[in-house]
């Protein structure tokens, strides 16, 4: 347990530090955040023609309401927590890689739901938007990470005897 904690905290702090570096922000984080905005727009467009993406900003052409996807809203922090958990837990490199890719996609899928929901909540009621944005969605995203990690543990447990047999 102590080993898990030490590796978890080590990976967490290292990845957080890396994420904050300007070259990483410019080369990875900002383009990725822009991609999230474009993906969200692409998902909304079949149902709502008024939405446009401008970089990290999602805008409604009619009402003018816009949401900007900033640090802490792009799901990268949640993904870092998940990666730290997966890296700290004993498993083969292959299992860790599969879990990181699948977990990242799972977290980002819910994050896109968060972005789209906030975009519409903000146009409907700003107080509700603030509640969801500041308090509820961070908790739901962390629960998502917890679910993914629990599924990973279960999957590892199922695969363990087969791995030992080979």
């Amino acid at each position, binding site marked *: 347990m102590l080993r898990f904690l030490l590796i978890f905290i080590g990976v967490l*702090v290292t990845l*957080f*530090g890396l994420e*904050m570096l300007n070259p990483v922000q410019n080369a990875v984080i900002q383009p990725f955040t822009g991609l999230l905005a474009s993906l969200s727009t692409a998902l909304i467009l079949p149902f709502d023609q008024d939405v446009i993406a401008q970089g990290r900003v999602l805008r409604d052409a009619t009402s003018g309401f816009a949401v900007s996807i900033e*640090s*802490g809203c792009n799901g990268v*922090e949640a993904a870092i*927590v998940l990666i730290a958990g997966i890296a700290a*837990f*004993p*498993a083969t490199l292959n299992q860790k890689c599969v879990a990181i890719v699948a977990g990242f996609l799972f977290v980002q899928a819910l994050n896109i739901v968060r972005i789209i929901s906030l975009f519409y909540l903000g146009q409907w009621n700003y107080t509700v938007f603030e509640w969801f944005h*500041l*308090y*509820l969605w*961070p*908790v739901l*995203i*962390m*629960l998502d990470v*917890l*679910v993914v990690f*629990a599924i990973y*543990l*279960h999957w*590892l*447990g*199922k695969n*363990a*005897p087969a*791995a*030992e047999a080979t």
Partner: protein
Amino acid sequence: MLMRRQIVLTLALMPITFGLWYAAGPLFAAPAVWLCDIALGHLYPTLVDTAGLLGAELQLTTQFGESAGQILPAKEAGNQVALEINTRLVSYSIAFYGALLLASNVQDSLYKFCTGLFWLWLIMAIGLASIAGKDLLLLVGEPFLSTELVPPADVIALTYQFNVLLMPTLAPVFLWFWQLQGSPLWEQLAADISRASGRA
């Protein structure tokens, strides 16, 4: 199966715990604000005058003042700059923790909740101090950074990111997991972990 029950119950309990947390207003934040006042007052007496609650906001009175758009020492400016920090940005961790713990079938849940609350108040105080650090960096700038014991700007940004954007959701999960020991869910998770580690 037990994990599914845990998640569903947590989601079902969240409207109740979040409602109670919001209705309680500054009650859940008060001990963290008190800790923050003591810590900042001792560590940075030349930066911080007092920190107290104003509704659900932490009002931090600084030793800086403003005159003709310039940030000066409060004595020179003849006034004090005060920051208002929304304590709910960190205190919602209590509502999340409450939902996680209530959804689990743990013994001595009230005692465990009180223990967890104590740890969360410490973490919240660090979170509030991190927000204050970030706000002072943006508002005061160089005079703040050149004060003794103030870390570099990059460290302030990192601690803000870590303590405000991450810890309010991560700390409750860790506390809950630590207090889960002995419960049926813990047994199931321990079995999964044991199998996964190849020791089953």
